[in-house]
């Protein structure tokens, strides 16, 4: 789920590149005419969430470390922080649409993020006047008209 934003895409590219390097090295040793397969017995690919604790490991092996990012506590992607993570609350179908729309892009747009959260900007705009109005406050003249406009839009959106 992580790594579909710009920075994390790069992170995943790096992850995949590191895995590719490890794989190529193993294959080249195997295919070499003068192969020393003993080294393969000591090959280790570490897939780690972060780099913490790596310095404490004294592994007697040929080692590739692949750092995988992503955490449920990291900030969620939004209009102002387009490089943050995607929260697990996002529905898979929305995520699929989002990935399809962004796979060839270098930068994620506001519209892409709206797709991800199934946010309708027009509906948001039409709801805005009511959120600053307390139901017990004195009515203003234009609220009823704004509600009619909102309802008309909702009806159209829902195919009524």
């Amino acid at each position, binding site marked *: 789920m992580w790594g579909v934003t710009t920075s994390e895409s790069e992170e995943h590219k790096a992850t995949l590149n590191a895995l590719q390097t490890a794989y190529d090295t193993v294959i080249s040793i195997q295919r070499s005419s003068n192969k020393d397969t003993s080294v393969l017995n000591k090959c280790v690919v570490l897939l780690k969430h972060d780099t913490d604790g790596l310095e404490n490991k004294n592994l007697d092996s040929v080692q590739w470390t692949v750092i995988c990012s992503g955490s449920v506590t990291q900030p*969620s992607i939004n209009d102002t922080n387009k490089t943050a993570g995607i929260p697990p609350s996002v*529905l898979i179908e929305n995520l699929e649409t989002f990935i399809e729309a962004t796979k060839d892009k270098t930068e994620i747009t506001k519209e892409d993020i709206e797709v991800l959260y199934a946010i309708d900007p027009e509906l*948001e705009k039409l709801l*805005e006047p009511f959120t600053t*109005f*307390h139901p017990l406050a004195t009515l203003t003249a234009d609220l009823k008209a704004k*509600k009619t406009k909102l309802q008309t839009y*909702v009806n159209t959106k829902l195919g009524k």
Partner: protein
Amino acid sequence: MINHVYISNNSANKESVAEIIFVKKNSEEKYEKGIEQLYEEDNLKKINTSGNTIFIIDVHCTFKGAEKLQQQGGVIIYRYLLKQFEKCQDKLKVVFYSPVPQDDLVKLKPENYVLKLLPFIECKYEEGQFEKDLSDEIAKYEKEVWVQFNNASENLLSGWALAKNQSVETNYLSDEEREKQINEQNPKWRTIAIIDDQLHEWITTYKTIFEAKTKFRFLHYNNSKRTKGTFDKSKIENLTDPKTADTLSKQIKDVDLVISDFYLEEAHESNNWMSVEELSKKSGFQLFETIKGKKGERGINKGVPYAMHTSSNKIQYYKFLNANGVDNWFTKDIRPNATSQEKRENFIVFKKGIEVYTSNPTSELYATLRDIWKKIEVIETWTQPMSWWDSKTKKPEILNLIKNSWAAIRSYVQQEDYVAENIGSIDTHFTPASVISNMCKILEMDFNGAFKTVNHCFHFLRHIRNAASHYDSYNSLVMADAIIYLEVWLSLLQNVKINKASKIFQPVNGHEHMIHVNVDTDGNENHFKHQLLYIYLQYFNSPYSKDAHSAKMRIKKRINDLLQQADKVILLQEVLNHVMPKDRRGNAISGAIHLSQAIACDLTDDATLELSINEDKEKLFIMND
């Protein structure tokens, strides 16, 4: 004194006693805190839970994590209120409001289906409208009862809505019924008993997510009655029909499925891991034993499928209950922040799991097994010899064989097919053949003259047993055959009209009947390719099957299935060219009837014609269409 607390994004109003306000914290219009932090640190966790407060919530509250109005953050707040009121949901009183009608809000965000079921005011922005509607709504629910949920029941409801309102189906349609016009179909509706100490928090969810015609029996375990903390079956009250003062036995004995909570008396799931001994003392397990019985105690409804619906997700507990006969385990997701994906998946698991016992073809097997168990119990209760076989010496052995067969079929039905598939051993024939072989040990017992002269029924039992015992025929048997076989045996064992073993297999007027199998010129029995079909037809058409009513219904279906699968060319050849059996002198055996007459009617040797079953005077015959 009732307090009104408004939860909204905007500033305080002097008419409200208290307010919880979510505002944007700084000039960059970024929220400082998300709902979880607000719950932990701020007002939400300090709320009075005495029942004197009515929360009036703006559906469109915003905060960190729900920054858009259409994310309907007010419902997220409601979920944290549910958590705060988890031990007193009857005290939580909520009214939502929005400029958008509640039906539309739910269509825009299906996971918030709860909005449709809770008190709601659509703001019309007309003078006095909100105040009047609020007053009416509160008066209405104060007079009736405030709708109750808890986090788990709301999550399940939400998952159902996210799964596009696919109801949990509780009716079974047989193949025959499916072929009828919809308005002529007669489905079997299952009755489901729900037992929970927090039942009031579940009823609305269950009624919404199950098919509308579902036959519920809501049984509330009232743990405030009598001795607190001690399981007592008399604490169960029938909410479906509160006027009934029936015992638990009467409430449970005819249901098709029991769904029960595990912690009826105890505090819910703790972090401690319980031992098997501790688990066996839990109220949910004691209720299970009361209903399903245990060693030395019969129980109320031993054959009924039993599922636990509990907040526990500890797999060792399930292993313990599974070993004791609990059929399934559904987890109540009690988190206020469960994701939409998780809620949907949890609902799908629940739906598919329940339908095994209510609407899938397996549900009919469970229903059959439940009825069969009741027959076994009747036989077991006989205190003196009642039937031809009921001697003190043989009774325990015969009951043991029958019970083992029942248990084997029950295990077979319960097992997950894909496990067998994964190891490359699809158990379609092995268990049915084993069950039949097992029951046939009764035929080996000495019944003092029972097998001197034998009729069609005996031949039927012997031939099916032979089919189960040989490698070239056992794989034609399926679970339907094992159930038929068990039912035929039970009809014989239940026969109290005959009290002498020597009479049970006696042919009418002493005239021996036989079931035809393929006999070669040397008198050796060989197998017809469609032998099972012929055996069933001959037994069905004999007078000796008349007492096995439920087995006959099943045999009829099995005959049709076998005919559909048959190789027409071979079948015609076998039936039309049947070699009549002869005695040692080469004479035709008395009473033998050619297969083309015993099981067929005007059958012609034309494989281009379809074969079908014709019923005439309660007998079945193969014919060409």
